[in-house]
């Protein structure tokens, strides 16, 4: 609860009668708090992991774009030139705007409003943000329209780009049909939900030009003969999950990040919600930005870079998932080994290979390490609101490795999906860093 206390104090301080000086503003904290408002709406809406990553990409992109015309020099190279986004336009716009933090956040909230189904819930956050800006005299009241117009321009630009990324075309594509034969994915208990975004591979990426370059190593083929790679891995999930230490259970739950876990009781069913894997890493990004005392521009920079990386990593991972269409341990174990076995975590509704958390956590961690440096320790409080304790890490990679192996403890992934997923995420991040001449 430390985080919330601090935040409340800050806001109170900022809005009090004594106007804090601009320098006193904890921008990374403010940024993270405003972005969490977007996260909250996503949680309510049950944005699936890939959809959530797309939302983070566009919302963080908006704040980063808005800061461009300020002429700020960033400590790391610009990454927009490595994407198809033609950002030049905003170098020239925003005339009259002197404070770019305010419109950057506002643009982020505007984009959030449009790209999340229940985005209307952000109206309140937008109004609060305007009041906050006025109260803190971030800009002169007469210039409000100017700022809002600028933010709207940024948002429109981002939304125009988003409109053509293939998202609305998804509903025109055939829905998933389970494949005949053994070893293929099939909807999993308890809700047997339809698979999440089977055509996500058709989504436009920011950095990755050729998705097949980032395909993971081949998975172990479905083979139940004793001693086969698959059989050994299946057995591993089965035995590991029955001998979990408390620490392993905690790790599995800490990284569960299942946006919608359905709990049944007779006719009553209730969905228990959590942030998505992408949401968790956006949380870590905010924590790191605060710890490093970044200024607003740098905060916006690293959030956007992580946001865009998350999106690309999800597209790549989701391609692998539906290319391989692999059976989940729960289905395989129930069919072949033990009908009463259940994983610690609820199996998320999409094919198994590769592990999404492994791919995107590694990709995020590699990018964050490149930015903040290795051995950057932090206290991860991202899951506090979702009933899980804070957790310390010595480095981003330590966290991502733990996130990856947590899927084995959770009983929802085989080892090769984790290890090859880590490799896939690493390759994606390195490519992005290389493209941006980091």
């Amino acid at each position, binding site marked *: *609860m430390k985080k*919330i206390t601090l935040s409340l104090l800050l806001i109170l301080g900022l809005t009090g009668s004594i106007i804090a000086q601009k320098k006193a503003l904890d921008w990374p904290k403010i940024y993270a708090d405003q972005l969490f408002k977007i996260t*909250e709406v996503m*949680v*309510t*809406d*049950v944005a699936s992991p890939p959809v959530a990553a797309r939302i983070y990409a566009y919302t963080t992109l908006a704040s980063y774009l808005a800061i461009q015309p300020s002429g700020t020099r960033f400590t790391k190279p610009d990454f927009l030139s490595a994407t198809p986004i033609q950002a030049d336009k905003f170098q020239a716009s925003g005339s009259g705007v002197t404070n770019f933090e305010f419109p950057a956040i506002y643009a982020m909230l505007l984009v959030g409003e*449009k790209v*999340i*189904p*229940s*985005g*209307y819930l952000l109206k309140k956050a937008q109004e609060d943000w305007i009041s906050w800006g006025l109260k803190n005299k971030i800009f002169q009241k007469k210039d409000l329209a100017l700022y809002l117009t600028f933010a709207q321009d940024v948002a429109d630009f981002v939304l125009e780009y988003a409109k053509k990324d293939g*998202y*609305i*075309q*998804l*509903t*025109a594509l*055939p*829905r*998933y*049909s*389970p494949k*005949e034969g053994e070893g293929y994915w*099939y*909807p999993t*208990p*308890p809700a*047997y*939900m*339809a698979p999440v975004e089977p055509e996500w591979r058709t989504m436009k990426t920011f950095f990755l030009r050729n998705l097949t370059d980032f395909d993971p190593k081949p998975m172990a083929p479905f083979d139940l003969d004793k001693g086969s790679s698959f059989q050994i891995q299946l057995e591993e999930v089965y035995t590991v999950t029955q001998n979990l230490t408390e620490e392993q259970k905690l790790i599995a739950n800490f990284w569960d990040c299942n946006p*919608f876990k*359905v709990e*049944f*009781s*007779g*006719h*009553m*069913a*209730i*969905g*228990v*919600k*959590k942030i998505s894997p992408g949401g968790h890493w956006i949380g870590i990004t905010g924590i790191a930005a605060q710890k490093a005392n970044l200024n607003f521009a740098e905060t916006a920079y690293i959030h956007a870079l992580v946001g865009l990386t998350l999106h690309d990593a999800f597209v790549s991972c989701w391609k692998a998932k539906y290319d391989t269409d692999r059976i989940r341990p729960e289905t395989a174990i*129930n069919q072949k080994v033990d*009908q*009463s*076995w*259940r994983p610690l975590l609820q199996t998320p509704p999409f094919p198994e290979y590769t592990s999404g958390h492994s791919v995107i956590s590694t990709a995020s961690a590699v990018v964050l390490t490149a930015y903040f440096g290795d051995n950057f320790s932090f206290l991860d409080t991202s899951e*506090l*609101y*979702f*009933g899980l304790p804070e957790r310390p890490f010595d480095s981003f990679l330590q966290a991502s490795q733990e996130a990856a192996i947590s899927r084995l403890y959770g009983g929802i992934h085989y080892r090769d999906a984790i290890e090859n997923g880590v490799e896939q995420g690493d390759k994606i991040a390195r490519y992005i860093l290389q493209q941006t001449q980091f």
Partner: protein
Amino acid sequence: MSHFSILSIFRMVCLVLAWGIAYSAYPQNQQSKFEKLNPKSSGINFKNQLKEDRENNILRYEYFYNGGGVAVGDLNNDGLEDIFFTGNMVPNKLYKNLGKLKFEDITKTAGVQGKSSWTTGVSLADVNGDGLLDIYVCYSGKGPVETRKNELFINLGNFKFEEKASAYGLDDPSHSTQGLFFDFDRDGDLDLFLLNHNIQVINEMEFDAARTGKHPFAGDKLFRNDGGKFTDVTEQAGIKSFALGFGLSVNSSDVNQDGWPDILVTNDYIEQDYLYINQGDGTFKDELSSYFSHISHFSMGADIADLNNDGLQEIFTLDMLPEDNERQKLLYGPENYEQYDLMIRRGFHHQLMRNMLHLNQGEGQFSEIGQMAGISNTDWSWSALFFDGNNDGKKDLFITNGYYRDYTNRDFLKYKGDYYFKQAIVREKADTLHLVTSMTSTPVHNYYFQNQGNLSFQNLSNSAGFEEKNFSSGAAYADLDNDGDLDLVVNNLNQTADIFENQNSTGNWIKIRLKGPMNNTFGVGTSILAYAEDEIYFLEQQPVRGFQSSVSPVLHLGLGEIKKLDSLIITWPDQQIQTIFQTPINQTLDLSYNPNYSNKTQQNPQQQFLKSIPAPDFNPSSSTVNDFKRQPLMVTMPSHLGPVLASSDLNKDGFPEIFIGGNKGTPARIYTFKEDVWEVYRGFRSASEFSDGVAIFQDFNGDGFSDLFLGSGGYHDYLSEDESLRDRLFLNDGSGVLVPQSNFPKYLISTGTATVMDLNQDGFPDLFVGGKIIPGKYPESPSSKTLINDGKGNFSDQSSEFLPNAKLGMLTGSAAQDLNGDGVEDLILVGEWMSPKALIWENGKLVERSQDYFPSNLSGWWNTLKQADLDGDGDLDLILGNFGLNSQLKASDQYPLNLYANDFDQNGSIDPIIECYLGDGMYPFASRDELLDQMVSMRSKFTDYASYSKAKISDLFSPDELKKAQKLSIHTLESIVLVNNGKGFTPKSLPRIAQSFPVYAISVLDINQDGIMDLILGGNQSLARIKIGRMDASQGLVLLGSETGEFTPLSSSQSGIEIKGDIKSILEFRQDDKTFLIFGINQKPTAVYQVK
């Protein structure tokens, strides 16, 4: 005619009569009317009050809101019916009937208040055979074993009772719902079927394990009465006693008319219901899946009664589908085909969420017609009771319903979970109980349906006195004031119980008080057939009906204007028969066991018209193609269309060849029928990529040998213009070999129909080819074609010449017929979502003149068209097969079905949005999940289920968007005959039972050789949306024609046709002087019948 077979003859007469009677018009109904008694006046103030706290709540016991039961019976034999209520958490109450609808609470002195544990159902039965009704009360809940032992209050007379469950061996500690007393072994005493339920949630992973073995407290049990001591014979009798049993009601009836009482058990959740057929040797066999093609899913209360007065009992089970749009939209989630398939693969039956009415066709054949009857959607329903509420001779229906919390509200599932993290954000502790008990509560009114005859019920809930919204559970009927009509007693949740006095004042009646043999003093299991004028009435003595309740053991028959009963035929439980002639009416008849006929009940085999004979070995592979994965908003799957059939003697050897059409994955085949043997015909090959939509044998090149035209249809994964949609012509080489013609015009449409006609008047047979569908673009239709034959079998596409407008709709049927008497054939077309069309040949063109020949508002979901001179007036009438009335889709002139189609969100896919009548107006048919899955833009428009639950089509789209969209409408879903009146056509509905399924195939044949044409209809559609479910009420229906033009339906046991499956085609063929019918069944082998 010797008298011993009176019953069997009678039954036969009944059967033949009843199918006729059932469809004849009944006299004007007497309007039912009930009035609720004031508790102050009646003295009945029992209230089943729940107290929700940490110990007692829905999270701890999931049947917390199921409510209590009612039992009515004359406990002191004073001629007045007394009332017993069970309270879940409050003491039971016994009310003595003082007469004149005054009651006295004598619970305390009677000592029947029961235990303080969770109390469920109650039954009255004379367990010890002393002539007094005893009371059996059931217990459940989370308490320890001791608290759950059921109680048996033995009646000592004068309202003194003694609890003797243990002495009788009936103090069973299961989680019991109710006990049903019946004499399953016909030894003259009452045995007990104890219905139980599990109190644990069973995870799907545990399903298989939970369906084997015996659960000590959740599994149902059967106890045999061995001289006053009950022995548990569950296992040896073959009763399932599974952990997965969530039994909510049990009924007993002789379902298959073999003289042995059978058992119906309804189960909540995934476990299917059981229909235990008594094997007559002390054992039962669950034969549900062979009796019923689909059943209700979350089955609750049930009743068994003869609703069409044919002497055969219908079976009705309740479920939870609401009537109105708003509650449906809040309830329906995404349709999950994989989960459904998994359920089937794991050995569960087809289960759909709505009430099911299984119409008894005799010989164990049932057709589910609940939707056509109008009684399928009554919300979360508990008790169903069939009784004659207005003494007009037809049994009406009363349903209690309501669930105290809206758990099935989709917003609860999706958004209530937010509570946990919202609480965390404001740093407050989450309390699940608070979450659960803060859920909304929506009371609903009970339903009263008046039987209109003709298998239809009218919802009179409001006018008959049941408009109040509440939560009602157990219910029972009895003539409380002895005025000759039945009153109702209803147990409510958290509200005083209701007594509804029947205000009926007309209609004759008779009540029968049975005095049965041996220890079965109330004659449980006795059946009564009453015979008056042309009517028959049927009753069976079994007080346990509905839900957790027990009705009066005094049997009641409404007789309408019938002045006397010609005879009563009583079949006692031991199958001894007693007949009484000229029974007086409007009084209570005391009837003691005194059989006067012997028990010979063997039935004369019925004369059936058709005899099943061996079929070809054509065995199509089953297809798993799910068209809803491609276009999620369609209603049925267009891929599964065949097989089509055609016949000809190709090699002129005197034996017919039968063409059986292929579907993608299964190539077409031709068979020769030679002296009752089917042989594969060698002179034909077809590829397996095609789906044959039409097959026509015709001599196209004038060489005297039949050639073959094949129109390719289907949807599958075909491209909108796919090579596999190519139509094909095969010319006969004169030796019977069919040679494919590569020069046949190439056009890539999914063909729905074709007709041979001479379009250019040159004497050679040309072709009209009708397009049905563009794969992936439903409901767009492709251009139809006219192909001109040069006389040598060379065709050329001259569509632009003959068809000024080639986009004619989604065509399914066509026929050539001279409509305007100019000696030139015109063209009649039917199809889905369109009116019949008349295309008149005018100066070498086919010009649409539909309105000159067809009445307006005949827009339908026409599947097929057949020409025949039905009235023998020399011109051709038409028979049109429609979608039928037995589904959730309704259509009328006032409330048509509308289909708006456009790429509304401009993402490259057609969005077909259906608007239909739902309860109280026109609404989008799609559930919120379906709509949001189709169009991204709707996701921000309807962010929760509540916002969509009231949405009209105008809330989805702007007037401009709707105006630009293609709009199709349907005004009727009835299958009809169009009588040719010389100038045009006059529609006439086919009989009611013919409306209970979609008709896909029609054959016209004088089946009973009376010189009048009869109809054979085939249909069903089992590949529809889950929300629509399997439409499978047809087993192949024979309609006998008459001189008046009316048709008389035959039940399947009368006709001899018992086909399970989707009949897509029927073909008549002959060999020598014998006539045969072959039925094409989708994804199944064909069925062949010889006409006797």
